[in-house]
């Protein structure tokens, strides 16, 4: 029986597609210049991931393993097309900003990777949960990086949210530093690499601390008085 807790934790933390598997880095690094771009791509990727995991899991016993990859890519491509058309219909401005990276979700290795490694071997419910959690984990990293780069690069947060949430969201923009000079580096691709590296390092540090704490709890404190025989005067 599938362990739902483990699937959830894997997707969000232990096997996070962006931080641990380092999959889908191309869109991750390319479009996280601001929170709204990151959120847009995160939602699109998560939707495709859930839907493709669902379908792949449904057809997993019908597709011969020799042609499974083309079949999965076809499934993913159809869902990406759906998402693309939906974005054109409802968030056209954002669609234009994200540009080629929406169609490129087809080639996002995180999606094909989950389809092949998990959905094709598991029943529908765990597969859908896995898709959702992997998508959420990926989106969380996108958002974190987008927020970091927007704050550093422009001194704002949540600028242009009306692209995604309609005109009511136009005043969500937070100006962190008034009269900010701008830090072009954070918005350009090298800033994404540096930011990504720092986030991965942060995750590793947190994991290390957790491991240390667990190890400290697991090994009981040394009993007072050494058990070694004293051999020198």
């Amino acid at each position, binding site marked *: 029986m599938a362990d739902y807790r483990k699937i959830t934790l894997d997707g969000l933390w232990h096997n996070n597609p962006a931080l641990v598997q380092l999959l889908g880095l191309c869109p991750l690094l390319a479009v996280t210049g601001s929170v709204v771009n990151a959120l847009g791509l995160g939602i699109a990727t998560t939707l495709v991931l859930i839907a493709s995991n669902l379908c792949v899991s449904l057809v997993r016993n019908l597709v011969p393993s020799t042609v499974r990859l083309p079949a999965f890519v076809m499934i993913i491509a159809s869902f990406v097309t759906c998402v693309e058309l939906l974005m054109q219909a409802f968030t056209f401005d954002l669609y234009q900003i994200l540009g080629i990276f929406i169609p490129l979700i087809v080639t996002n290795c995180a999606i094909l990777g989950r389809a092949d490694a998990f959905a094709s071997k598991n029943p529908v419910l765990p597969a859908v949960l896995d898709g959702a959690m992997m998508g959420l984990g990926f989106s969380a990293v996108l958002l974190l990086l987008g927020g970091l780069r927007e704050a550093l690069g422009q001194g704002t947060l949540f600028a242009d949210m009306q692209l995604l949430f309609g005109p009511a969201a136009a005043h969500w923009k937070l100006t962190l530093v008034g009269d900010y*000079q701008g*830090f*072009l*580096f*954070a918005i*350009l691709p*090298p800033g994404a690499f*540096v930011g990504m590296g720092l986030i991965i390092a942060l995750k590793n540090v947190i994991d290390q601390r957790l491991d240390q704490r667990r190890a400290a709890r697991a090994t009981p404190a040394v009993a007072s008085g050494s058990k070694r025989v004293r051999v020198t005067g």
Partner: protein
Amino acid sequence: MTLIHTSSPHTGRPGHVGGVMRQVILATLPGLAALVWYFGWGPLVNVLWASVLALVFEAAVIKLRRRPVAFYLKDYSAVLTAVLLGLALPPYTPWWVTLVGMFVAIVLAKQLYGGLGQNPFNPAMVGYALLLIAFPVQMTQWAPPVSLSGDNPGLLATLKVIFELTPLPDAFTHATPLDTFKNKGALTQEELWAQVAGLKDSFGAWQAVSLAYLLGGLYLLVRRIITWHIPVAILFALFMVSGFFYGSDPSNFAPPLFHLTMGATMLGAFFIATDPATAATSNKGKLVYGFCIGLLIYIIRSWGNYPDAVAFAVLLMNLAVPFLDYYTRPRTYGHKKANKGIRG
């Protein structure tokens, strides 16, 4: 009379890191003096401010890494990085630009890779390249030579401008000769020299600064802190390729002397490319490394987006150093040929 009562070898103090770094810093002093003479107090303030920042960042990171702070600060490597970056910055660089640059140089480019000797890229040049990309406006406001602007704003006024208590006056910015040449548009070289006001003055000032760097570089050569391979290869490559293009179309390309003495060529050839941690190690490798840097400097200067190219050229070749070292291993004594690669 004292008798030597230690056993052989009777060499002097072994060259330790701190000593070498201090010598290199000492060798930059003629260049710094020339910059101060021609461009006012700005470069000196930059170097000092960058050094303070370097020591603070270095100490903070070493403290975080739980290593002895005093021991690592005393090797002067952070100060040298600060001096090189400070010399490369425009004279009236705002204080926070230097702060960002030193943070990137010391924390990201040096300590994150494991500190001195572990860094694959020259920290000062990483900081400089990042600043050039991140703050193009502030990083391209070079000052006019004092002889041209007519007044030297004094130490206090310079400090006020750098720490942004007073705004940067327009008279404090001026295109460098490399800038002028980059943006010459349809002018031929002869027209450029005849028409652009002040080009001759700033050309003279930059030439003097380059000569001062050359002097410092020769001192390093004499003290055997660097070998001749890298600087000679860089200058040779730059001379040859710029001579070739100048010879083919003299009204469109700058003469070799212009490339050798403008911008950061001399600083780069003697002080930056020769950084022992990031340069190629074998003599043959050093020659290839230097030659490619010279070539890249010319290519980026002539057909790239930026007027000067030393930082980018050095960083690109830093990337190639493991490859160069792999293929240029010298033959060890007793072996018929060099043992290349990692096979036992």
